[in-house]
């Protein structure tokens, strides 16, 4: 790393999209329109599980103003199914419906009202099948399975002899915890504009992974990659809900049928029936020595992956990876099974399998501490994986020290001398903590171009999707830093598969690390070319010239970038292009191992519970994020605070409630997400900046970690306050009230 002082990296500068986003000019997918564009509406299955006997769309097709009605019968001359790991998802239901809300048909019409009217005219006849709802039913398999079987995926990570080692331990503890289905509520529901033409398919989509969408569309419509273009305008939140391919094939198929561009914009209810987080049931068994040393752990997690695979394979695997927690075990066995049910398909959601694992592991850790009479902090400090050790055998060693920051933040939180204040007899307070580490970063495959223009400004071409996380700002800061340009001279363009190089995905907290490294390397490449040009201009060696603030200088003389580029191209315009392609073989050697980095989560909570109503409030919350190097500290804090508040949601309120396969709360009136009123009185994020990440300037990923520790920290605080241990989320007032009653009866 260079010893020069940073000019923009490390600064909490305003985001580069501030002007657009505070003036209302920022364009999201539904703000765009193409000439002749039709409006689409979906016909959804009212049943969770049924055979489709017939679909009659003739009345809808006959309605004036309707351009096309797509059913399975129209999916000819193309692939009919898609999916990231398994192609098990039909573009519209074929033969069978597998969840309430599955599209069975779609209408394209002159306007949305007409499309809605036409949807009402579609008549479908079904033969009902018993729905498979919940893990028990999926495991029992007593009725017709959801797919060919109800098992989506099995996975195991193990070393040593966990079962055998238990017998030799002083104590063995076991707990089971459940985590509900929850919904991302990205405020912008999924939206797509598709324009299908014989030799070209153009799609504007709220997609997090445009290159994966492109590949999927090319496969489905039997086109070459260059014939498919996916553009991502501003995205109104993702959190995983817009990962992989969702409604793009449907919109494109409808456009193909209608012979004109089609816009498909989902409602919140439809978005809720598009993707959700996996519900889980996790059992952990831990063999512990009398002094609190963990020896062996056996754990099993069952995941409800809903009706189709979506990202269920990877989530199942990560759940097993993450469930054992950040502790050292001589013997470990962690297994996971993903199960199909007749509910909304589950996919990626901010730290896949992470909150579910930490909820179980970290609640269990406090149970052990309580049983052994050891302070929960001390028990963690004793057992945390140490720097340089393997958290999962055969994977990248943990670079970060966990114990020191955990102890330090605990001190700052007042852990050791905590005395609960009581403001009324029915109000009780307590404190709790949780800690987790997740294998993050996904695949290290990203590219970037940096074009340094003839006037000294620069355009950065990179495939990361700006979903609100601030990637465009962080990447502009990195480019400006490396190009030695003021931030205002750098523009990062929107994701457009026609115009930016390949980037695998926007998720898994990977963008600043991997796309950041790509931008860093491409900008450094451009800078090296400028240094060479300056050396020729000054008739010296490249090492002798200094680049700063858009100028090159040597021995008191200086020349602007623009003038220098004019020299290179003989004064007739032209531009310098820097490029990079990040792969696991990156010359730094830091990307060769799996995972790319470990993402740290720590949370400390003080709660107050009304013991009469069961209502829990978070009074104080301190979160710890480990960005290695914060490119933009305000954005890192913002990501972490937002993640933590989203965690407050699944901790206290959020749950998709199904009854007999029908979603009972498919709207924001009945599905409660956190509001301003839930903001803790004190709410802090502590940033660890130890320069130990594989990304630019020692950066590593954040953004997912903040959500992971909230539920167990809050539940542990509730346990501390009342002695009630709750094993199911969310901690609704009724659930807490029941737990308090049982605790008092016991």
């Amino acid at each position, binding site marked *: 790393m260079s010893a020069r002082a940073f000019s923009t990296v490390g600064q909490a500068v305003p985001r580069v999209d501030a002007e657009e986003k505070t003036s209302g000019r920022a364009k999201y997918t539904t703000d765009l329109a193409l000439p002749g564009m039709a409006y689409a509406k979906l016909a959804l299955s009212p049943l969770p599980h049924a055979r489709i006997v017939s679909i009659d769309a003739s009345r809808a097709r006959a309605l004036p103003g309707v351009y096309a009605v797509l059913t399975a019968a129209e999916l000819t001359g193309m692939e009919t199914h898609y999916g990231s790991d398994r192609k098990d998802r039909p573009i519209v239901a074929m033969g069978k419906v597998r969840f309430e809300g599955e599209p069975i048909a779609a209408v394209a019409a002159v306007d949305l009202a007409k499309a809605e009217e036409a949807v009402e005219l579609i008549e479908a006849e079904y033969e009902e099948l018993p729905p498979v709802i919940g893990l028990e039913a999926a495991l029992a398999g007593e009725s017709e399975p959801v797919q060919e079987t109800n098992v989506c995926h099995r996975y195991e990570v193990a070393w040593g002899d966990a079962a055998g080692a238990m017998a030799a331990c002083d104590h063995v503890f076991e707990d089971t915890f459940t985590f509900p289905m929850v919904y991302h509520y990205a405020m912008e529901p999924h939206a797509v504009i598709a324009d299908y033409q014989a030799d070209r398919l153009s799609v504007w989509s709220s997609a997090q992974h445009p290159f994966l969408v492109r590949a999927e569309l090319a496969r489905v419509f039997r086109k070459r990659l260059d014939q498919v273009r996916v553009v991502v305008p501003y995205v109104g939140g993702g959190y995983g809900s817009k990962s992989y391919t969702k409604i793009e094939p449907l919109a494109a198929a409808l456009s193909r049928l209608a012979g004109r561009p089609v816009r498909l914009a989902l409602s919140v209810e439809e978005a809720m029936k598009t993707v959700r987080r996996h519900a889980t049931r996790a059992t952990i068994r831990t063999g512990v020595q009398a002094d609190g040393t963990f020896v062996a752990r056996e754990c099993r997690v069952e995941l409800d992956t809903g009706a189709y695979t979506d990202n269920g394979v990877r989530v199942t695997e990560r759940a097993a990876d993450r469930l054992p927690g950040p502790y050292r075990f001589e013997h470990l066995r962690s297994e996971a099974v993903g199960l199909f049910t007749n509910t909304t398909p589950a996919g990626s959601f901010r730290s896949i399998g992470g909150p579910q694992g930490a909820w179980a592991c970290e609640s269990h850790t406090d149970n052990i501490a309580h049983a052994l009479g050891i302070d929960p902090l001390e028990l963690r400090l004793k057992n945390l994986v140490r720097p340089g050790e393997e958290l999962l055998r055969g994977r990248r060693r943990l670079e970060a020290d966990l114990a020191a920051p955990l102890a330090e933040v605990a001190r700052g939180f007042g852990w050791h001398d905590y005395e609960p204040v009581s403001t009324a007899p029915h109000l009780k307070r307590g404190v709790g903590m949780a800690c987790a580490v997740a294998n993050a970063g996904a695949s290290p495959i990203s590219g970037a171009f940096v074009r340094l223009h003839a006037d000294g400004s620069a355009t950065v071409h990179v495939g990361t999707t700006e979903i609100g996380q601030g990637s465009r700002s962080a990447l502009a800061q990195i480019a400006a830093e490396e190009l030695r340009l003021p931030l205002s001279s750098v523009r990062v363009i929107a994701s457009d598969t026609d115009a930016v190089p390949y980037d695998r995905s926007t998720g898994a907290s990977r963008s600043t690390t991997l796309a950041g490294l790509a931008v860093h390397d491409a900008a450094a490449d451009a800078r090296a070319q400028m240094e060479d040009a300056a050396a020729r201009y000054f008739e010296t060696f490249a090492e002798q010239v200094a680049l700063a603030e858009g100028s090159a200088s040597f021995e008191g003389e200086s020349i602007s970038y623009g003038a220098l580029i004019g020299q290179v191209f003989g004064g007739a315009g032209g531009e310098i292009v820097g490029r990079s392609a990040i792969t696991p073989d990156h010359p730094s050697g830091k990307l060769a191992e799996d995972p790319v980095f470990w993402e740290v989560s720590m949370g400390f909570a003080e709660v107050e519970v009304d013991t009469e*109503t069961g209502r829990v409030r978070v009074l104080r919350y301190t979160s710890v994020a480990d960005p290695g190097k914060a490119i933009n500290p305000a954005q890192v804090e913002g990501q972490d605070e937002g993640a933590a508040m989203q965690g407050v949601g699944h901790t206290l309120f959020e749950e998709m409630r199904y009854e007999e396969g029908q979603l009972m*709360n498919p709207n924001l*009136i*009945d599905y*409660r997400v956190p509001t301003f009123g839930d903001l803790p009185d004190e709410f802090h994020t502590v940033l660890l900046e130890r320069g130990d990440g594989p990304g630019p300037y020692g950066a590593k990923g954040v953004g997912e970690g903040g959500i992971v520790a909230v539920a167990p920290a809050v539940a542990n605080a509730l346990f501390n306050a009342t002695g009630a241990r709750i094993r199911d989320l969310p901690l*609704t007032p009724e659930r807490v009230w029941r737990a308090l009653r049982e605790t008092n009866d016991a």
Partner: protein
Amino acid sequence: MRPFTLHEPTSAAEASALLLERGEAARLYAGGTELLLAMKGGFLPCDHLVNVKTIPGMDAVALDGGALVIGAAATHTAIESAPIVRERFPLVAQVERRVANARVRNVGTLAGNLCFAEPHSDPAALLLLYDAEAVVEGASGERRISIADLQIAPYETALEPGEVMTAVRISPLPGGARAAYLKFGIHHRPTIGVGAMLRVAEGVVVEARLSLGSVPPVARRLPEAEALLLGERAEHLNAESSAVAEVADAAAAQADAVDDLHGSTEYKRHLVGVFVRRAIAQAAA
């Protein structure tokens, strides 16, 4: 949403005639914050919307012989911010200020709220603490319906076909009366609302009203629990008193709770006890 025709009458009689003429296909429209949601969701067919806001004077909030008269087009915001409400009916102002959110309060009306009869809502339960009436106008003239008789089932009122609610009349609490209203829940709509009104003479409760909303299908008084309060010394009515606990138990027994997304019957009965106790203590304090 299905298309509809908008009608803009200039008198209650005209509105009433329109309703009679169009029958089931017509709906009265004031703030529309509940009605239009239901229409958008496809739950309420409606081909004719009859706007009461075009009737002159409908948005008035005024005193009439000591009673507060709230026109059918007066929004929650207009009510809670009116000086006469804040000064003479502070509890009404306080509850109205916490209905839904600011945007809904800026558009939604008290009369519309009462007519829609959504079970999870505060105003009806609050008004049961008062002598309050709905003023309605129909083909056969004007009549008044006691607030206790107005809502007869979820989303159903005692209004006859063609009747238009023109105002809500709220009489002041009797001298010596103190009242409190508490609401609770984690959802957008309340899980429970409990009101308590105690009239105390020479330190003794001589009149008591307890109201319960959001738990039963329709907001209701709790007469058996109220009866237990008569003759109690106000100074003893704190949250820990056994007398209050007895009242709370009686209230819980009468709660008429139903299981829904807000909780089980058992939990709601428990909450009734808790909030009746707290509301009495607050009113007595």
